[in-house]
């Protein structure tokens, strides 16, 4: 079964004349600056966000979206760029969340120590489990990683030693935290933290996939046997990608626990991994911005659809429509399905199509033979 | 004579690439029509367009008709049931199925499959009935792919490089088989082995850069040095001269049972 084939959308390399061409490489930087100064704006986008852009509620939502954008980008390092379908990525994220929470709340460590220990621990965990799981390939690999993650989920749910709080979760003890991370007025700092995380992940993934190792990973996605015959050990490269992605996920967990202020067991579930997969596919696997967009959009919908479902607009519809529409998951699921048919190749596939359209609309210079 | 297949102004684009640009030719109702051309000119693309197998990203224009019937809008399976047999370039045997299962799959409902004919041609297929096709050697897979279409009666066969990767002896055998097949069914053949072409082909269509560069009598083509040189990049002398092998090779003894 060829599960891991991603159909890359061949992006026609159209040499853009003049300024646009020179500006292009700086666009991410511009986006970063815009995102960084966003909290200084008081613009209201009614219907899109509850309050003005700088309100804590909006910033909190944006922070969560950014975290998941980063997580999805990290997961894409495995899935879209190396072709490894892991069903257990939630485990490393959860390790980040619970690790930090337990070290801060139960062991009373200062945040920086807890974060450092957690990220190191999460990375080592990924390396160890990856070393075992990578003895299999394809669906078997997916299932072994799922199995490991499931053990993690059971351990968290069973609340061994009273560490994790079981199904009730573990609120983060903020008394030892830097004051700048506590309280609604400081939500903006969490937002910036999330932005920093996203930037870090995108940068790392970008650098890695453009590196010699990244080239090997792309080769692995297509034909592992061939990589071996070329003289490279597929196992080593896959393990590096797995460990790196695990470490990035754990780091995401550290930031997430600060933003949400606690850990709850549903982040250990296989559903979270599945959502990561959905985010990546929604955005466009193996593309630079697709997974980020997918992650942001997914989380945005996940949070905002609850408000949509209870809005008056929906309530006033006839029952046949209003009942399903008031179920956020119904809308979310429907969005996925529609996305597949309307944006094949993910959100990232939209850009070339739009470019195509504009080119088609522009009067073409007659190609004289 | 009415052609069995006529292709008119066929043009195929796949994801922005204009692969075929107005190809027109006909296939005579008897004998072998061979489609020639360098790698990548679009031979395979032509056969697949006839069968309706252009990838979804592709766009096909023009007309393709068999007799009075237009083929373009019909689903592949209907065309095949209507008597269009196809031997693909990469053999495409079902690697996970056994040889026998591969053959069984090719049986068409309502007809009696000609197993005798196929096994007489390729006894190997009979012997290896229970082996998984994926573990067959390259040549054996090719035999299976050809055997598969010969099980049924066809009105036209589309065969893409059938001798690729076959041992010389098998090439000869396949050529013989196709020669016999072509007595009753017209064949549209893509072939790189010019010796085979010379033996089988009646008509030739030469493609170059997505267009038809030449059509006409195959023997005429192969005899004209200037033509073969310009169209196929080889002198007709090379085509017709006995290959180095035949100098070394002694008289052939046809004792199949020793193999």
């Amino acid at each position, binding site marked *: 079964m060829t599960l891991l084939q991603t159909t890359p959308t061949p992006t026609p390399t159209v040499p853009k004349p003049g300024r646009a061409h020179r500006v292009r490489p700086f666009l991410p930087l511009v986006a970063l600056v815009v995102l960084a100064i966003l909290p200084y704006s008081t613009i209201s986008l009614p219907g899109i966000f509850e*309050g003005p852009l*700088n309100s804590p509620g909006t910033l*909190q939502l944006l922070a969560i979206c950014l975290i998941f954008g980063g997580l999805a980008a990290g997961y894409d390092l495995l899935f879209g760029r190396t072709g490894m379908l892991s069903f257990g990525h939630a485990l490393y994220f959860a390790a980040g969340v619970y690790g930090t929470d337990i070290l801060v709340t139960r062991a009373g460590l200062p945040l920086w120590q807890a974060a450092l220990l957690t990220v190191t621990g999460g990375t080592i965990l990924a390396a160890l489990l990856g070393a075992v799981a990578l003895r299999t390939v394809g669906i078997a690999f997916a299932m072994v990683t799922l199995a490991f993650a499931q053990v993690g989920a059971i351990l968290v749910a069973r609340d061994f030693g009273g560490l994790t709080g079981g199904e009730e979760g573990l609120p983060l003890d903020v008394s030892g935290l830097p004051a700048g991370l506590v309280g609604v007025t400081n939500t903006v700092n969490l937002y910036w933290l999330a932005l920093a995380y996203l930037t870090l992940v995108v940068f790392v993934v970008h650098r890695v996939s453009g590196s010699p190792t990244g080239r090997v990973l792309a080769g692995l996605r297509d034909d592992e046997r061939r990589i071996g015959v070329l003289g490279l050990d597929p196992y080593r490269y896959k393990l590096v990608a797995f460990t790196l992605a695990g470490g990035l996920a754990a780091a995401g967990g550290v930031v997430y626990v600060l933003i949400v202020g606690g850990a709850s067991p549903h982040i250990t579930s296989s559903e979270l991994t599945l959502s990561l997969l959905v985010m990546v596919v929604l955005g466009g696997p193996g593309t630079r911005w697709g997974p980020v967009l997918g992650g942001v959009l997914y989380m945005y919908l996940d949070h905002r659809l609850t408000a949509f479902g209870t809005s008056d607009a929906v309530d006033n519809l006839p029952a046949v429509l209003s009942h399903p529409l008031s179920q956020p998951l119904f809308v979310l699921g429907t969005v996925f399905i529609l996305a597949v048919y309307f944006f094949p190749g993910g959100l990232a596939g939209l850009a070339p199509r739009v470019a195509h359209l504009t080119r088609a609309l522009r009067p073409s210079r007659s190609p004289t033979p | 004579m009415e052609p069995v297949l006529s292709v008119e102004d066929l043009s195929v684009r796949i994801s922005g690439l204009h692969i075929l640009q107005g190809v027109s030719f006909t296939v005579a109702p008897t004998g072998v029509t061979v489609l020639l051309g360098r790698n990548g000119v679009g031979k395979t693309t032509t056969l697949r367009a006839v069968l309706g197998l252009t990838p979804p990203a592709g766009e096909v224009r023009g007309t393709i008709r068999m007799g009075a019937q237009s083929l373009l809008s019909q689903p592949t399976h209907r065309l095949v049931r209507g008597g269009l047999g196809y031997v693909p370039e990469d053999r495409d045997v079902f690697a996970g199925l056994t040889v026998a299962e591969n053959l069984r799959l090719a049986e068409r409902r309502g007809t009696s499959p000609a197993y005798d004919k196929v096994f007489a041609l390729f006894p190997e297929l009979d012997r290896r009935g229970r082996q998984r096709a994926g573990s067959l050697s390259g040549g054996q897979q090719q035999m299976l792919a050809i055997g598969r279409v010969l099980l049924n009666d066809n009105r036209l066969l589309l065969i893409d490089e059938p001798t690729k990767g076959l041992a010389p002896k098998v090439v000869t055998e396949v050529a013989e088989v196709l020669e016999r097949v072509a007595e009753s069914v017209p064949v549209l053949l893509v072939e790189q082995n010019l010796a085979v072409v010379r033996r089988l082909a009646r008509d030739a269509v030469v493609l170059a850069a997505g267009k038809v560069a030449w059509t006409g009598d195959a023997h005429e083509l192969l005899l004209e040095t200037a033509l073969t040189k310009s169209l196929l990049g080889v002198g007709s002398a090379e085509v017709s001269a006995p290959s180095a092998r035949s100098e070394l090779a002694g008289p052939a003894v046809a004792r199949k049972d020793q193999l």
Partner: protein
Amino acid sequence: GSPQDTATGGGDSAAPVKVGLVYSQSGALASYGKQYIEGFKAGLDFATKGTGKVGDRKIEVTEVDDAGDPAKAVSAAKDLIGKGTKIIAGSTASGVALQVAPIAAQNKVLFISGPAATDAVTGANKYTFRSGRQSYQDVVTAKSFIGDPTGKKVVVFAQDGAFGDANEAAVKAVIGGAGATVSSVRAPASATEFTPFASQIKTAKPDLLFVAWAGTTAPAMWQTLDQQGVLASTTVVTGLDIRASWPTFGAAGTKISFLSHYFDGASDTEASKALKAKVNTIDLFHPDGFAAAQMVVRAAQEGGDDVDKMVTALEGWSFDGVKGTMTIRAADHALLQPMFQAKLAGSGTEFTATAQKSLTGDETAPPAVAMKG
């Protein structure tokens, strides 16, 4: 604007009192949430005598769906606080309550937790209150079924995880502390086949079996206990869930002794009449919403916009709720309230509950815990 701006609660005396309700409108606990909000509306009506106002100030309620997800609830709470809301109530799920409570303390707003039953909400911090019952009160009610516990053998059958742990600990403390020997049989929350556990319970031959089980596998669990003869051989006590679940007990329903937080007809108070007039049939979590509204009105009345004053006004306050007299214990904000013993009768889809006995708030009072924050 500055990134650290938050709207300030309107100091002027005619501005509305903003109340945020963060609870489950969708997700697994949606029906609990529905009862809660119906109860809240009825309670608000009752406490403001139909005006919806405290003094001149209108009570402006914002409802937000958390879908049972703490992360969504925290986002919603931050959003509300950012908009100047000083009172937040809701939390259908324990996990939500536990994570919203610290947010309330960090930002010094009042938080009144809803149906979430976890004991940990009690004494969570100065700003956190509860409008429902807690697990401990359930267990104390269960104890009332066996008279003098001395020398009795009690088995707790519960799910793995915090909910089970809490129940087991409470039974050990309450009934074990009163002289019974308590042991436990635990099953994974995901279990679908209960015969092994039923066998273990049967071999233990307890005088009282306390079952703490939530979730969709409950009916299968009860059927197995019944089939293996556990229900016939001992007194089995468990909490009575919402009405919709009653028929799922099947034949087992009539063989179980129920401790009940509330069911229609358990009490006959002014508040219950007012509630019944609004919702026809009162269900398990209507009283929680009702009480929450009463507490909100009290807080707004006495505290104005000053959260610390609201806290002082609520601490030690006694009021007549749906269940009877409710008292907010000043030390740890436990809500002392009556509890009930009940029996089910009927069959098929028609079951009715009847009260066997009611226990006063003092009888079921949990031990005071130290305020954590």
